[in-house]
């Protein structure tokens, strides 16, 4: 069976829809309950992981480097939980990193504005002109959040297999629609899609080993090859390459590791001007 990834402009709506899908379709739920395990595995605070999932990086927010670290750790644990099929996942930003897997059925659920206001505004209601502003501010913050780490706009409909607006559709109907569509043959797991998840997982696990030292590293796993891109000054290339290879090889299943050093031109320019 497919696994369903729910994204929404409202975290409460995502949770409600996902729980109903789990109950009616017999799916297992993967959500923020994985955060304590993630925190323990990677030695970070649960509060920091939650902040990374909710707040954009910024001067007054979370430092970008720490956010990247936290999101990498969450990604590594979430993908591990998504290895078996028949899962419904929400609240972990999986719609942004679990891409290109044919048995991941990705759904965006848009909440009714009045419902969203109830969640966002302390009073639970707001005059129409103020409500629009509150929602626009919320959307802007969410877009900043998704662009921060994943360089994608999560409100882009192209990221999803199905987008449902609850404006005219009851939640029960939406759940029925999601379950019926997820049962289509094209969303069934296959050897290729399962291997894709395994490769994403291994890449995330390798990145989790590197991200503290190399926050901008990129990791891709293709079959038995693990390809790492790191930005560094020329004089550090050899040393960093060896460090990255050694760290990557501590991840179970990693065989061949290739490290590509991308020249850090800014750092190089700063250094040559000294």
């Amino acid at each position, binding site marked *: 069976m497919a696994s369903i990834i729910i994204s929404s402009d409202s975290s409460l709506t995502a949770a409600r829809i996902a729980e109903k899908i789990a109950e009616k379709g017999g799916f297992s739920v993967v959500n923020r309950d994985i955060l304590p395990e993630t925190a323990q595995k990677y030695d970070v605070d649960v509060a920091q992981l939650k902040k990374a999932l909710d707040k954009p990086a910024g001067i007054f927010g979370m430092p970008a480097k720490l956010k990247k670290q936290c999101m990498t750790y969450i990604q590594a644990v979430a993908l591990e939980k998504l290895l078996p099929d028949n899962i419904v996942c929400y609240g972990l930003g999986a719609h942004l990193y679990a891409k*290109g*897997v*044919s048995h991941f059925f990705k759904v965006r659920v848009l909440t009714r504005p009045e419902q969203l206001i109830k969640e966002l505004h302390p009073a639970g209601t707001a005059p129409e002109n103020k409500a629009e502003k509150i929602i626009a501010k919320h959307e802007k913050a969410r877009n900043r959040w998704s662009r921060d780490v994943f360089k994608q706009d999560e409100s882009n409909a192209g990221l999803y297999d199905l987008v449902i607006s609850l404006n005219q559709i009851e939640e029960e109907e939406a759940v029925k629609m999601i379950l019926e569509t997820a049962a*289509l*043959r*094209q*969303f*069934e797991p*296959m*050897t*290729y*899609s399962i*291997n894709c998840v395994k490769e994403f997982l291994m890449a995330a696990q390798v990145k989790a080993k590197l991200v503290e030292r190399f926050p901008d590293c990129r990791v891709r796993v293709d*079959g038995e090859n693990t390809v790492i891109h790191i930005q560094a000054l020329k004089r550090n290339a050899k040393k960093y390459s060896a460090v990255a290879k050694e760290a990557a090889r501590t991840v179970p299943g990693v065989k061949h590791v290739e490290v590509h050093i991308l020249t850090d031109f800014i750092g190089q320019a700063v250094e040559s001007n000294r």
Partner: protein
Amino acid sequence: MSNLDVLLLDDEPIVGKRLKPALAKVGCEVEVFQNPVEALKRIDEKFFDVVVTDISMAEVDGMQVLEHVVAKNNATKVIMITGFAMMSLAREAMEKGAFDFIAKPFKPDDLRAIIARAAEALGKPIAFEAGESA
């Protein structure tokens, strides 16, 4: 335990050359084709339990082979193999009735595992354990 009739179609001769003995080891009777037109002709003549087909081929592609097999007898399990795997292609293959889809390169054991599942689904189990030598 009865033999499983398998048709293997790939325009690269090395694929058939490598996989035929690997599948024969787990009790498959394998007929290898490089030309999809000839393969389709053979499919019309004989029932195969499993058809393994490449997707990118000149003249007739793997999707057309899949459609032909499903239209003829949907009891046949069709396994798609490709060096150009992507999500849209995988979904299209499954929607059209493929049993499984695997990206090249793969190990003979990977294909044997899929064929073992297909055999199980057909009620004709074969003796296969992961880790058997190629």
